[in-house]
């Protein structure tokens, strides 16, 4: 954090300063903190747009389109939309550089070209990503309007049956059950481990953190393989929803720990120190100060880990088996989940099955989207920032405490007691 420079103060402050200077030694006057982040610096917007810039962009775009059209249809033996776009884009950059160089010098031309390139890359990435998601949703349009798609399983539906028979209810329940079990396993362990990394520092904690960080990129199929090797081959259990949930847990655990660790690290040290200074023990500090402060971030961490886990196919592929029937018992029998169902449906050559696959993928995407929006709503605030209702509750509780203390002091006015409970 950069301290504001100690410049000579403004005249408005300097006048009273000069009048008091005669009475005592000169005092240091700190400038008032600005309206931005306390003590920090704020970035200023420096962008300007001129008409000539707009003309240059539009002119270069038009020229490159016409030139590419000429090249493609009249002169060169190219085809395909991708080639058209690539050549048009390269020509656009060249022509834009040429147009700008008419009235700017070297560095400004480089600036414009880099700006155009960076903007187009940003646009391209977002466009491709939106397209990937939009494609799955759009292709799911044939299966999704059938209500039976959400209320039946595939027990009675053969591969040639139309979309009005069969559905993915078994996959939806399977996904929900597996992710619930995985959360029951990972959330307590993950949060305890994240607290351990931050609140019980030492060499062991550093070692655990290194291992966890390295495991964040554990290939999901290796997690599946591990559970397959231990539970199914080692203990001789059948493939089941429980095994799939455990495989998901192994995969999600490092993700949740990592995200929770980052959030807990953001809790201001001064809050902890204040708690210790009032005499609170370590675990009370964690329970009453650290965890409540980081609550929204921790929720986000868990939700994002859930979103990652819900969409994983490969651990489930190895450990859950496949069934077309509803299975509500996670401890026995194969249990299918949404990504696994998608994967299996699209392996079939039948158009109806492929449509079901896309419908399943769209359902899965909707679920992930829902989780993500929830995470954004909950996690939009930094540590310690409260909603209005939370703030109100906090103020009320504080007032109640004050009244309680006052009442107690009235009862026993002479013996001062320890205010901090243990």
């Amino acid at each position, binding site marked *: 954090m950069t301290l504001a420079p100690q410049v000579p103060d403004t005249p408005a402050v300097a006048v009273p300063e000069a009048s008091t200077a005669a009475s005592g030694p000169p005092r240091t006057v700190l400038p008032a903190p600005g309206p931005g982040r306390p003590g920090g610096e704020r970035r200023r917007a420096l962008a300007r747009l001129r008409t000539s810039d707009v003309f240059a962009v539009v002119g270069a775009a038009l020229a490159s389109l016409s030139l590419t059209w000429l090249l493609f249809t009249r002169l060169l033996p190219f085809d395909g939309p991708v080639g058209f776009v690539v050549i048009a884009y390269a020509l656009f950059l060249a022509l834009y550089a040429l147009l700008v160089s008419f009235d700017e010098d070297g560095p400004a031309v480089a600036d414009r070209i880099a700006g155009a390139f960076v903007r187009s890359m940003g646009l391209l990435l977002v466009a491709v990503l939106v397209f990937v998601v939009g494609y799955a949703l759009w292709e799911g349009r044939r299966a999704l309007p059938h209500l039976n798609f959400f209320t039946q399983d595939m027990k009675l539906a053969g591969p040639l049956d139309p979309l009005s028979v069969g559905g993915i209810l078994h996959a939806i329940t399977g996904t929900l059950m597996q992710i619930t079990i995985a959360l029951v396993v990972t959330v307590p362990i993950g949060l305890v481990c994240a607290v351990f990394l931050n609140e019980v520092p030492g060499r062991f904690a550093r070692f655990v953190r*290194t291992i966890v960080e390295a495991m964040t990129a554990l290939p999901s199929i290796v997690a599946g393989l591990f559970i397959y090797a231990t539970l199914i081959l080692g203990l001789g259990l059948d493939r089941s929803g429980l095994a799939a949930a455990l495989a998901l847990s192994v995969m999600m655990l490092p993700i949740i720990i990592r*995200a929770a660790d980052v959030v807990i690290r953001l809790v201001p040290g001064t809050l902890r120190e204040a708690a210790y200074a009032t005499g609170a023990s370590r675990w009370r500090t964690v329970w009453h100060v650290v965890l409540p402060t980081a609550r929204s971030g921790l929720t986000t961490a868990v939700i994002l880990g859930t979103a990652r886990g819900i969409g994983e196919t490969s651990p489930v592929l190895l450990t859950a088996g496949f069934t077309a029937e509803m299975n509500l018992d996670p401890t026995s029998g194969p249990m299918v989940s949404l990504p696994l169902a998608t994967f299996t449906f699209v392996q079939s050559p039948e158009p109806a099955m492929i449509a079901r696959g896309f419908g399943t993928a769209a359902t899965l995407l909707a679920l*992930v989207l829902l989780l993500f929006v929830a995470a954004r709503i909950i996690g939009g605030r930094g540590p310690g920032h409260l909603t209005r209702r939370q703030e109100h509750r906090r103020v009320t509780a504080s007032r109640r405490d004050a009244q309680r203390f006052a009442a107690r002091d009235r009862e026993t006015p002479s013996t001062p007691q320890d205010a901090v409970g243990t």
Partner: protein
Amino acid sequence: MPTLKRRPLPAAGEADDVPRRLFADPGVPDRVFRAVARGGGGLVLAVMLLVGGFLLLRAWEALRRAGWSFLTTAAWDPDSGHFGIAAVLLGTVLIALVAVCVAVPLATGAALYISEYASPRLRQTLISVVDLMAAVPSVVYGLWGFFWLEGHVLPTARFIATYFGWIPLFKVDGADPHDPLAPETVYTSSTFIAGLVVGMMVAPIICSIMREVFSQAPAGEREGAYALGATKWGMIRSVVLPFGKGGMIGGTMLGLGRALGETIAVYMVISPVFAVQPHILQSGTSSVSSLIALRYGEAGEFSMSALMAAGFALFLMTLVVNFAASSIVARSRSGATSDA
């Protein structure tokens, strides 16, 4: 309540004035808390070590039988004792490299756009979109790659193979560029297409790490560059990129780690071959994870051990890449506070 206890003072003249050990008694609840926290950490550590340990244990039989030829054999036929990961390892690495080559320019540009060029309101939206994309299930990317991308990227693959086929990497056996009616099946299911799909998948991950690092470049240095007359690009080149270099490398390697381990999207796109196949545009390739997904169902006890060995190799590879990535990020100037 923590209380400070100390041994009673030694009687005068009994001994020299030695420094006393201070001992803070944390109390029972705190001791329990510490034990539970330590236990949680230890449990996680145990699980993580078990993953590697168990894979190695199960893989041991196959590794002992195959010896060093495990690394040099291309075929995968464990039941006849002739198996190795040369082909699948090469396929995995090539797919990941194509993915990184596609994803890094895209992600760098997008990260710079989000952190430097976009207006504040647009920035928030774009950050949400990119973060959401990092959570999109891989099977969705696989669907896109198999049903849409494959059909639309073939002309490009043919173009590259026709005009750059003299580079060994882009050579396609069995393709005849002079025959306009030649079937395009020699270009389908290739390393290139799988790499494109995986690249789109890891781009948001790389982008969000780079964006995080770029936005931490100190405002004072930015404005210093502007004050010296730099253009925006000049400022980015002299302040933002050097500041974020560690994050860029680390993010790229994390993306590489993800790309190496990707299973389902690759499995859906490629058609597996078990021979060393370095031509990225040619149909047929393989990867360690898709090998496991393909063969685990029909595997007997020994083939399962061989698959475990392949999984262990993949595990080691991603572990090394990931360790390198996090140490680069942590050592860089920008990495001290970032969560990358």
